[in-house]
């Protein structure tokens, strides 16, 4: 079968037409103008350049069917653009179904009544990116693509390299050369091709977009396969609702880089509400950014619906996207739900990491530090209600960003191996 490619301009009859190749997904629809396209490796509207999103015609989905599914994101396969039969999906590391921890000690410290941490560091490569990659690689396989590629701020690099290794696909990963050593090494370990680019993430992303024009047989998970990729983030929202006993929380705080995760958590909850799987109770969505890369937060504060790009300078490298493609939609969600988008300086990110680790035993990467620190700020400013049930997303693992805390945490004491020496510490 010839590889499907982004250079197909007219919808090709037959392709995408075979039953249920993409589950109950029916088309790609432009978010801006509503133009529709067949399900293929395309991502931008030919009329207006708007981003394309997967549309569905779901048969009724029941709680019991989901609950009987596997302990991974595939329990929601019926709500994703994937073939229903697991045999038609690549072998993977079964990401998702991560823990939702009640966070009473953090809540007490912040003066909150009921707080939960959705801990996505429990994924196979320790970030929520394993979810989006699982769906994107399934699309790559369905479309007959043999190479998967991405531009990454680090976590996606890990996730693509690992999942491609497991699926037996070739991977080509492009990252900014100045990423944390932990993210470079842990990507390279999987043996795919890793290209370090001397530039910012936004440079890498632009480069990938240009390369994608002429590599029709490669699936760039976050460029050409983006409509599929992005759907994977919905599973964070589904899980939170199911783990709360099939209901929605009052407030959620989500880290924002491109803004995709935030918009997909909202999409997930709206879908569950309209499918009758949860009562459609109101909720407020809050976004979290680092002050050193806060294009969405700035636009929120300024009341704008366009997001002016910035040049990032922050320790939160996983969130260092200065030109966030889904920024306008993240703004829409925050405003529509009565939420907000906030930002915090690097010192507070480090404090946020330490606060979560100290109170809950969860060691987050910088993105989690951003989220906890913004939670605190929004409580202080009165934008977030301390009495309303709140979920914060920890999307990555602190072991990948040791650089951020290496100067501020360390041994309490270093002693000689003698009892006397131990006593001198005064414990």
């Amino acid at each position, binding site marked *: 079968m010839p590889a499907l490619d*982004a*250079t197909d*301009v007219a919808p090709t009859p037959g392709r995408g037409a075979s039953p249920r190749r993409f589950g109950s997904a029916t088309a790609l629809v432009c978010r*801006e103008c509503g133009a529709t396209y067949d399900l293929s490796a*395309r*991502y*931008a*509207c*030919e*009329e*207006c*350049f*708007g*981003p394309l999103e997967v549309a569905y015609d779901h048969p009724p989905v029941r709680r019991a069917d989901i609950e009987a599914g596997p302990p991974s994101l595939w329990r929601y396969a019926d709500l994703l653009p994937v073939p229903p039969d697991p045999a038609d999906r690549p072998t993977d590391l079964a990401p998702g179904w991560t823990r939702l921890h009640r966070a009473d000690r953090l809540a007490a410290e912040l003066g909150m009544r009921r707080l939960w941490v959705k801990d996505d560091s429990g994924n196979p490569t320790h970030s929520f*990116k394993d979810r989006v990659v699982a769906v994107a690689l399934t699309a790559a396989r369905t479309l007959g693509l043999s190479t998967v590629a*991405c*531009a*990454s*701020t680090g*976590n*996606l*690099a890990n996730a693509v390299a690992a999942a491609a290794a497991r699926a037996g696909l070739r991977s080509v990963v492009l990252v900014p050369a100045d990423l944390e050593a932990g993210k470079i090494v842990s990507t390279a370990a999987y043996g795919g091709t890793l290209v370090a680019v001397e530039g910012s*993430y*936004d*440079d890498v*992303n*632009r480069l990938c*977009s*240009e390369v*994608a*024009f*002429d590599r029709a047989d490669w699936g760039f998970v*976050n*460029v050409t396969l*983006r409509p599929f*990729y*992005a759907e994977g983030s919905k599973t964070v929202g589904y899980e939170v609702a199911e783990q709360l006993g099939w209901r929605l929380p009052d407030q959620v705080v989500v880290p924002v*880089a*491109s*803004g*995709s995760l935030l918009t997909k958590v909202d999409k997930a909850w709206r879908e569950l509400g309209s499918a009758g799987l949860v009562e459609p109770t109101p909720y407020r969505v809050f976004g979290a950014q680092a002050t050193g890369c806060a294009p969405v937060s700035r636009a929120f504060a300024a009341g704008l619906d*366009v997001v*002016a*790009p910035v*040049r990032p300078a922050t320790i939160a490298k996983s969130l260092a*996207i200065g*030109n*966030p*493609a*889904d920024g*306008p939609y993240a703004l829409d969600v925050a405003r529509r739900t009565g939420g907000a988008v906030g930002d915090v300086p690097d010192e507070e990110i480090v404090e946020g990491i330490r606060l979560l680790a100290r109170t809950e035993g969860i060691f987050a990467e910088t993105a989690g530090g951003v989220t906890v620190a913004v939670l605190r700020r929004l409580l202080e400013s009165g934008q977030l209600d301390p009495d309303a049930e709140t979920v914060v997303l920890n999307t990555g693992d602190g072991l990948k960003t040791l650089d951020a805390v290496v100067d501020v945490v360390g041994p309490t004491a270093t002693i000689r191996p003698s009892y006397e020496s131990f006593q001198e510490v005064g414990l």
Partner: protein
Amino acid sequence: MSVTVRVPTILRTYTKGAAEVTVEGATLADVVAGLDATYPGIGARVLDDEGRLRRFVNVYVDDEDVRFADGLGTPTPAGSTVSVIPAVAGG
């Protein structure tokens, strides 16, 4: 003032499949006008009804996002390369 334009896949129907075309123009606005003169209709894909760059179009002159420069007023020196790219990012 010859400028090379890298054409995104979704606009190549206008350029008969060409991935790169050459146009004249001292600023990005001139380049877009020049493109539209040679490939009628392409301008309206890149610009909205008010003549501004569309919300989901990113344009780079020599790899620099024009929103960091002067938008449509950004100079396009002879020999420069203009890239037109659908906005997409996240990773």
